[in-house]
């Protein structure tokens, strides 16, 4: 599936990338392809189409997959 991967905050700065298009069937695989790193760090949060998901979740064509560090709002 062609999906859009987005990185936020410290993760975006560490990886030096903001948005990447990849072909992936799960969020985990999208991470590997978009970040160039084998495994998803334990504290990274995953959202598909702006809803939190388990990284093993299957993707659909056109999904927006976002990876970001723990949230610190408020």
């Amino acid at each position, binding site marked *: 599936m062609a999906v859009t991967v*987005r990185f*936020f*905050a*410290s993760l975006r*700065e560490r990886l030096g990338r903001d948005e990447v298009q990849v072909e992936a069937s799960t969020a985990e695989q999208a991470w590997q392809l978009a970040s160039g790193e084998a495994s998803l760090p334990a504290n990274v*949060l995953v*959202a598909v189409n*702006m809803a*939190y998901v388990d990284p093993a979740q299957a993707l659909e064509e056109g999904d927006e997959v*976002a990876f*970001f*560090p*723990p*949230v*610190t*709002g*408020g």
Partner: protein
Amino acid sequence: MRVALIETALDPWQAVQTHQRCLTPGSYGATALFVGTMRDFNEGSGVSELFLEHYPGMTERHLVQVAEEAQARWTLIDVLIEHRVGTVYPDDPIVVTAAWSAHRKDAFEACRFLMEALKSRAPFWKRETTEQGSRWVERNTAGY
């Protein structure tokens, strides 16, 4: 219900008063309010500036979910969440949550829930500028 991301100065007292004008006078007996303000210190360092990043679309959606969940769990007349984004300075308000109810128990508990749920779920990230340079805030302090 009002949920808003604010790009310029946030005035929590004005926000609450303005919103309250939409409520039926005499219907609510209890208003609980929380205002989060930027401090000039954190984890032992002076902080001169804070940048609030968010995820446009997802952040608003989660604030609405948090507000709806509060309304489902408590007997409320209305709720309000306003949150700053962008660059803020010490003493600037960052967030306001408010809950109106007939009774104080619901208002207190819902207002606190709004803040805790927002802090744990809504995608915001803080980068603070200290004398040592800038750093991302790694985690929030415990709320309960």
